[in-house]
């Protein structure tokens, strides 16, 4: 028997059995539905669910192209995603830096657990509570503002504040995840470099900009990609808190597509889903190009 030598790759045979259950679940509940969805996007909505659906080519995509609501929803989604990604990254980075700074000693773990708690909270429950926190009559927020003599906050009832209100609830739910990733990256940063910078008399800003930030590239990249994909798909918060309103201000692409499904406009809905899927795949491919492991929370 050959010893001390690296054995040749084992025959595939038995590994088929190991992969089979996993592959079966992925194919039946992942790949097949996606193929069905893409296929449906090329058929007429009225016949989409029938065995011999009527093929209409790119007609559904053409309808989308000239649909002002879709154009608005897409624009709104991109704007919201941009703002939310930026806020999430900045807030998470600042908070991780604060928690790992020399100024925080005791209580570090407590602060970390507290900011992560909303991440594992069922999103439905979290958003239901926020929906009521914003409420004009039951809500704690407006009561507190009123008590302090401050102007009331429109929350999810007003078109001018609803995007901010939704974003705050989403930040609350998600930001802990990004804080912990920055935290993990910060823990890996080279202490020697920081000490050297201090010896050279670098101020806090120089230290952050020239020493820490370059070392935080991995976390910055990963967090940006996660956040981008996550906010592009924003859905639950809208379904629970606003139903796309008021006056369509929170009608994002994913929610609009879901509404079309509800109305039986399967062709257009799946066309929209395919567009969003393509967008996310494109972004992920770009990310992989930068050697990022694509993984979704």
């Amino acid at each position: 028997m050959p010893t001390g030598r690296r054995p040749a790759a084992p025959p595939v045979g038995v590994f088929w059995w190991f992969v089979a259950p996993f592959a079966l679940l992925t194919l039946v509940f992942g790949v097949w539905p996606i193929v069905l969805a893409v296929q449906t996007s090329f058929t007429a909505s009225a016949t989409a669910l029938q065995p011999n659906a009527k093929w209409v080519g790119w007609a559904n995509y053409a309808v989308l192209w000239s649909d002002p609501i879709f154009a608005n929803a897409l624009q709104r989604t991109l704007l919201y995603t941009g703002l939310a990604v930026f806020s999430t990254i900045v807030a998470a980075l600042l908070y991780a830096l604060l928690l790992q700074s020399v100024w925080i000693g005791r209580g570090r773990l407590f602060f970390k657990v507290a900011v992560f708690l909303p991440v594992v909270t069922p999103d439905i429950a979290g958003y239901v509570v926020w929906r009521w926190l914003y409420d004009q009559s039951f809500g704690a927020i407006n009561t507190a503002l009123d008590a302090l003599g401050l102007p009331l906050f429109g929350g999810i009832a007003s078109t001018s504040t609803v995007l901010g209100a939704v974003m705050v609830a989403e930040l609350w739910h998600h930001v802990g995840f990004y804080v912990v990733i920055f935290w993990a990256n910060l823990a890996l940063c080279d202490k020697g470099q920081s000490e050297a910078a201090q010896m050279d008399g670098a101020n806090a800003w120089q230290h952050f900009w020239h020493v820490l930030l370059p070392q935080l590239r991995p976390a910055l990249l990963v967090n940006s990609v996660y956040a981008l994909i996550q906010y592009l798909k924003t859905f639950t918060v809208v379904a629970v808190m606003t139903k796309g309103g008021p006056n369509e201000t929170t009608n994002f692409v994913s929610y609009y597509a879901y509404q079309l499904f509800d109305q039986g406009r399967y062709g257009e809905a799946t066309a929209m889903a395919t567009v969003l899927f393509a967008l996310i795949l494109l972004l992920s491919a770009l990310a992989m190009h930068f050697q990022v492991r694509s993984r979704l929370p």
Partner: protein
Amino acid sequence: MMRPAHLLLRGLAYGTALLVTFVCLYPFFWMLVSAFRTSKAILASPLRPWPESLSLSVLSELAEIGGTPLWVYAGNSVLITTASTVLGILVTAVGAYALVRRPDFWLFRAFRLGFLATIMYPYMLLVIPVYIVMYKIGLLGSYTGIVLFLAVGPIQFFLFEQFFQTMPKSVLEAAVVDGATEWQILFRVVLPMAMPVVATAAIITFLLNWSQWLPILVVSKSPATYTLPVALLNLNGELGVNFQGIMAMSVLTTLPVILFFLLAQRRVMSGMTAGAVKG
């Protein structure tokens, strides 16, 4: 002795951290207190930091939601989450192991890419074609359909993949030299070694699947297979707001996962973010 400037900075740092923590935790606190207060009392003073009484009378109001008893939803949550976690961990661990052992095999490589693509698909739009699939294979409205759909997820897969990739080759080689079959290697060597990551993945899967709602809502034919989050969504959408009931239901949905998380917080936090930043 600290310099006054340092003391000030330290105070500012703690002040900020405490403020952020307050914002993070207040919704939980408010939810818990409101669950004990009548809707009338909350309307009168929404900010009151403790309930008028610690009565559990709201539970009798919630005994039935939409014609289905509360314990059915709770039982469904436990059953569906546990079953999908156990199945998912088993299937994913063994599957990921095989993909890592033969990464060069073209079909495996293609399959891995296919899996990566499916997790990119906007899940809220995936559930509708899943509805059609469930209909075609006759699993609509069944626990089996829900559990099978929830079983496979990305985080579990990546945790296992990363673990198996970093597992020392020498262990496998020794087993091969000893004449062990691949089945023996898997069950006697690899899986016992993987126990810590199995535990981490199981806890995380449990937390994630407990929170699931859309697939369950879509695959269900009636409230008989709803879980707590889905029942909560239903309750919140009802006309004639039962505010206290909604808060109590939120507590019931949230409390189990919070306790679970607090018990295993290190594992959960490091597991959910593992591999994101490679050292």
